[in-house]
């Protein structure tokens, strides 16, 4: 992580609000903070910062940063209004400077299995003496499918639906039940494009195949089952749309295969 980006963030926050960098993406740097920016609550909070890009003209860069920060914030506020859909809560947005404060989701998995995103969760059940086909895994993957179904049915796409961008949070005190949340809507959009939906499903399928190949078939089936459940709630209209999306998903998959045979 570049020193001057960090210095800039620390100067903006002042020493009163210390943060720790946890991830660096193409567009944003993600930090955690133990302090809330404006409430006396302590806990864990996420700060997402889009640093200036030197290769862009400064005024264009400023406008783009603002646009993207607002875009992600606005998307999160719209998705919050969809019943049943789980996304991080927006705490604050300083669009001019490229800062978003979000609720922190997830936790450390037991026995050092890492942060509770879908990827690590599936690893946990695939290693040691876990049962990769147990009902907890099945239930969780169906719920993930439902989240994607809710997103797509309501006319939104994620744009980068990997198994790290799905975070699991224990529902209440019940240790074995997990609620999936979709995170990182930096590439998300309001779109009813069947193509974008097909690509979302394909990206997640690829992510699962590449890290959990031995169980991928069952896993993807469970995901699609949950996904379909949402569409099927809407009768014939739902069935028609579901067919459209799954058909396109298969086409995207086929294209992907051809590309990998050539490449």
């Amino acid at each position, binding site marked *: 992580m570049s020193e001057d980006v960090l210095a800039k963030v620390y100067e903006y926050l002042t020493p009163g609000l210390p943060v720790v960098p946890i991830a660096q993406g193409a567009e944003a740097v993600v930090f955690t903070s133990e302090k809330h920016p*404006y409430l006396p609550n302590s806990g864990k909070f996420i700060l997402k910062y889009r640093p200036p890009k030197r290769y862009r003209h400064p005024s264009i860069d400023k406008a783009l940063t603002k646009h993207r920060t607002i875009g992600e*914030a606005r998307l999160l506020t719209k998705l*919050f209004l969809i019943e049943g859909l789980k996304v991080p809560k927006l705490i604050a947005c300083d669009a001019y400077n490229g800062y978003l404060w979000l609720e922190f989701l997830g936790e450390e998995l037991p026995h050092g299995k890492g942060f509770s995103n879908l990827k690590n969760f599936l690893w946990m059940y695939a290693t040691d003496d876990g049962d990769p086909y147990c009902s907890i895994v099945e239930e969780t993957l169906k719920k993930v499918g439902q989240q994607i179904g809710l997103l797509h049915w309501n006319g939104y796409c994620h744009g980068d639906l990997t198994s790290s961008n799905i975070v699991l949070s224990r529902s209440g005190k019940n240790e074995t039940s997990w609620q999936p949340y979709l995170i990182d809507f930096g590439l998300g959009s309001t779109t009813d494009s069947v193509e974008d939906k097909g690509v979302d499903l394909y990206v997640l399928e690829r992510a699962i195949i590449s890290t959990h190949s031995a169980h991928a078939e069952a896993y993807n089936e469970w995901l699609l089952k949950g996904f379909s459940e949402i569409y099927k709630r809407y009768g014939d209209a739902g069935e028609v749309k579901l067919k459209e999306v799954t058909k396109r998903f298969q086409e995207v998959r086929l294209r992907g295969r051809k590309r990998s045979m050539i490449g």
Partner: protein
Amino acid sequence: MIVSRFPQFPHYEISIALYEDVTNVEELRAKANSSLPFALINASLVFSVEQLYSAVYRVLIEHTYNKIQTASFSSECLLRLSASTKVSESQKFGLKYPSNRIICVNIEETTDDSIERPDETIFELVKGKSAVLEDENLSKKCDADTLRKIYKLDQTFQPERPDEFSRALVNAIQLRGL
């Protein structure tokens, strides 16, 4: 009265108090535009502490980065609470409508960053009973229908829990004018 500072803005002292059964609303209303240094907010349009602080946080963000739009911290507080960019709309959060429950907000720039003891005299002009500023107290007496209209919350949005309603207000405040 609650006196606090945001960790990111150690040189601003924020004092907030809730008064009920205020008897001199007319007098306050007459002074609100010119001679009062602090903001007077109609408490029935405040649902949660989070809603209030999220607006004050935006005031300080915009102030620090020179985008403050109104003449003073007090009018800026009303503006940032409002979901509209129109200053006239934001007056709704002031004493435009009669209410004897009033929240006072004072933002003061200070040279040091230590918490002073609450100065109970800053709001002494307000003749009312001081009440505890907490979510339960606010949400119980809040005019949720008017808030829904102001923040343009659709009737299909029927949150099960109060914190979900509060979250929708914070969303509107953070995105206001962007």
